């Protein structure tokens, strides 16, 4: 008879309290994650735009210069993206310990690959930036460097998305076999496309501001292209990136597993989406504005998009909270039960032990021997070390030498070194030595 357990895994949590109230940690998590993801957007979107402009730059040199200018912003944005990722990482480790670590382990090989992959991408980015003049006459190599970076930056988000998706669905944990099976779970790919559009939209908006600054000497650096024409191009990226979200957003919503859906989350997400319409309206105005007036609505667009993102980030958290709430109750129950079992077992163990008649009759030295030496020594055969009868022969009549050896053994034979028994008191050494020498 085989007994199969068909069950959703319910694990125990770490039995330590949260360091701060949950609402505080949640708030911090949502905000710090949004900051992190914003800089990631700028890093990924920036790299994509650098690639595009470098390719355009093959025909018109000033686009190559523009690409170079954008790489300078990536240097800053990438460092902020990485450092700002630490806070949400720490908080999610704390709040969703067992869920997050489970997802990490189940996709472990690819999860840890994030480290060398991103390190490589960042190093290539530096080489790409610092060797710009050096590789003047080898544009193919130069562009392939940024293309490699873009390829890495387009793959790594899938690893992150797979992880934070898998952590929400304990019912899938026993069925997953490695990263690719987790990647195929709903709804990783719709979320991925949602993310890519955001990269384009955010970067476009950022560069409209960056290239539009009065102190920024655009005309000196790129005389043959017009500043506001480029800014309009960038606004177009933002506009289309955001417009497509009105299709992708619902796609994400409809492909989300039911577990996490709830009215709280729906209301927040849909409110966010409606605020986005306000931003789209002003984006449209910017696209239709005359060259001189580009940028006049930038502030309104940015502020409203920021509000949208806060709503979306909050909705995203609500989905997670909804999805995990029932399971978290079971985990809490199991954790509490386990602590009770531990306490019971401890009581059992601490009941005064009745020594068996045999145990009572053992010489003191032999008791100490059983506790400390039996791992490697037997009385009359070789185990890891020589038998006690052999030791008795070697140290015949020489209790002191035997005691010295036990306390600080040398090395007379091949094999493992006997560890020093420095924790034994002088009396214990004497007891054990006397017992050994009494063996015939």
């Amino acid at each position: 008879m085989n007994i199969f357990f068909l069950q959703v895994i319910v694990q125990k949590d770490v039995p330590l309290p949260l360091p701060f109230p949950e609402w505080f940690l949640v708030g911090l998590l949502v905000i710090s994650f949004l900051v992190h993801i914003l800089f990631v957007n700028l890093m990924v979107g920036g790299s994509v735009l650098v690639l595009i402009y470098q390719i355009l730059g093959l025909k018109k040199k000033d686009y190559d210069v523009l690409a170079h200018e954008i790489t300078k912003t990536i240097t800053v944005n990438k460092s902020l993206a990485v450092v700002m990722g630490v806070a949400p990482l720490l908080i999610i480790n704390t709040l969703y310990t067992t869920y997050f670590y489970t997802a990490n382990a189940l996709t472990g090989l690819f999860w840890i690959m994030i480290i060398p992959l991103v390190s490589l991408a960042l190093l290539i980015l530096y080489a790409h930036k610092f060797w710009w003049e050096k590789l003047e006459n080898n544009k193919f190599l130069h562009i392939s460097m940024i293309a490699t970076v873009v390829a890495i930056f387009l793959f790594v988000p899938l690893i992150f998305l797979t992880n934070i998706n898998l952590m929400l669905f304990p019912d899938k944990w026993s069925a997953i076999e490695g990263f690719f099976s987790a990647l195929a779970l709903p709804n990783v790919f719709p979320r991925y496309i949602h993310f890519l559009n955001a990269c384009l939209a955010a970067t476009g908006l950022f560069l409209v501001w960056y290239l539009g600054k009065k102190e920024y000497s655009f005309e000196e650096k790129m005389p043959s292209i017009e500043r506001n024409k480029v800014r309009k191009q960038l606004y177009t990226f933002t506009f289309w990136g955001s417009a497509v979200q009105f299709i992708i957003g619902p796609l994400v919503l409809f492909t989300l597993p039911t577990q996490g859906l709830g009215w709280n989350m729906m209301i927040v997400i849909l409110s966010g989406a409606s605020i986005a319409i306000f931003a789209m309206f002003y984006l449209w105005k910017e696209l239709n504005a005359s060259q001189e007036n580009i940028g006049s609505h930038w502030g309104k667009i940015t502020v409203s998009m920021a509000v949208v993102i806060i709503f979306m980030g909050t909705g995203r958290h609500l989905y997670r909270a909804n999805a995990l709430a029932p399971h978290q109750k079971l985990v809490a129950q199991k954790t509490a039960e386990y602590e009770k079992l531990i306490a019971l077992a401890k009581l059992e163990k601490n009941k005064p032990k009745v020594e068996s008649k045999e145990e009572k009759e053992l010489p003191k030295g032999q008791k100490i021997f059983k506790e400390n030496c039996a791992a490697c020594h037997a009385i009359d055969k070789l185990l890891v070390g020589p038998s006690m009868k052999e030791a008795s022969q070697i140290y015949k009549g020489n209790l002191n030498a035997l005691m010295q050896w036990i306390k600080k053994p040398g090395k007379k034979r091949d094999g493992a070194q006997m560890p020093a028994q420095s924790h034994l008191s002088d009396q214990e050494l004497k007891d054990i030595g006397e017992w050994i020498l009494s063996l015939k």
Partner: protein
Amino acid sequence: MDFPIFHLDFLNNRWLIGIIAVLHALINHSLAVGLIPVVIMLQIKGLKESTNQVLSESWNNLAYKIMKTAFIITTTVGAMTGVGIWFSASLVNPASIASLIRVFFGAWFVEWIVFVTEVVLILLYFLTWKHFHTGRLFDKIRHLKIGISLAVFSWITMAIIVAILSFMMDTGNWNTNRTFIYGFLNPLYVPQLLFRTTLAMTMGGMVAMFLTMIYTKKDDAIRPLALKTLSKWMLVFAPLTGFGAWLYYYIIPKSLVGNMPVAMGTMEFESWYSQIIIVVAIAIGLVAITANWAYFKPKSLPKSLAGISLILTFWLMGHFERLREFIRKPYVIGEYMYSNGLRAEEYDLLQKDGVLKHANFSPVREVNANNTITAGREVFLLTCSRCHTTAYGINAITDKFGKMYGYDKKWDSDAMKGYIQNMHKARYFMPPFPGNEQELDALVAYIQKLKEYPEPLRGAQDGLGFPKETASSIYETQSVVKK
């Protein structure tokens, strides 16, 4: 520990953390904490040089080039390996890192705030260098001040993280004094911080010296001057490092010293402890020789000596980190949690019920007549795999028993049982076996099977090993279906 068990059966899980963490420590000591003050020193030399403009520029250019190297490495590999420590520790021992962050969350959060400041400062310091240096003296001094702030914040991050590291090693304090402040008050804190600070400064000096040899030419006027300045720096900090190391060793709790010979080299080299000490002494000696040579005869210092001394200093530091981590064993958190991720207080229950009964991610929940080897494998995964691989990897279990009983001889089950049950008394770094009698039998059978047929052990990253049918409803968590 009640997590899916990620396992690398060749590299060994400890090495995953080890490689990432040692790389990170090497970078943050030698290229951040220790190097920024050196760069500032070179910058100040340039600013002080008021008569010879060419020389002043040379100092400034050298400082800039060295800073550029540091900037590139620290903001890529340096930053990512820092994140990598979190990733790898979470994969290899989630139970311990989860416990630590619930207690030290505040410390790590403050550390993070300081990191953010450090990142902003290093971006400002490096990226505005050229801009400020075409300006007036006032601008140059403003730039220098940014560098000084960066050096200070860099050191502060070290001061915070050492509190956590010292706490992990100080035995018995988890249970009595589990607070952020105690991280700073425990007896290991000041010695470790002193040692690391002086070591970082020495390493920073070595790196700067090596880079000076690369970034300047033999006949450049700046080279001997820079080498002399840097060697003065090292001649101050190298002996202080020696003092810091001695102080640190002196304070290590008595009960942990017993492990030192094993930690300095693996078990096989226990008896070579004294030889390793000699090698360490040679490394320090070489550093001293390089520094003196650079001071008295800067023009003749060979590039290779600077390079070799640098590599040896890195090696020394890597060794120290391993020693520090090893001395903690059998605990990962002193007196609270063993290296296997199980808490000391769980043992009474587990040695009665068995570990499998409470391992919710294991497809096998009990030992019976039909599953001895499989159960033994799951027990190995749960209780041994944090430090051991199975057969061909680093620290393989078949190697351990092969060394003890002979590779070609039969391994007696009773002897193995007796050993596993008592090994924590013979080998201080081994945690006690947490399972029950049947699980011990199963484990022994599994290890004997490994000797015969070494099948690599899959970790959670390749699947948990559950039968294909699983529940899709949370209602099914309590049901048992008999087939």
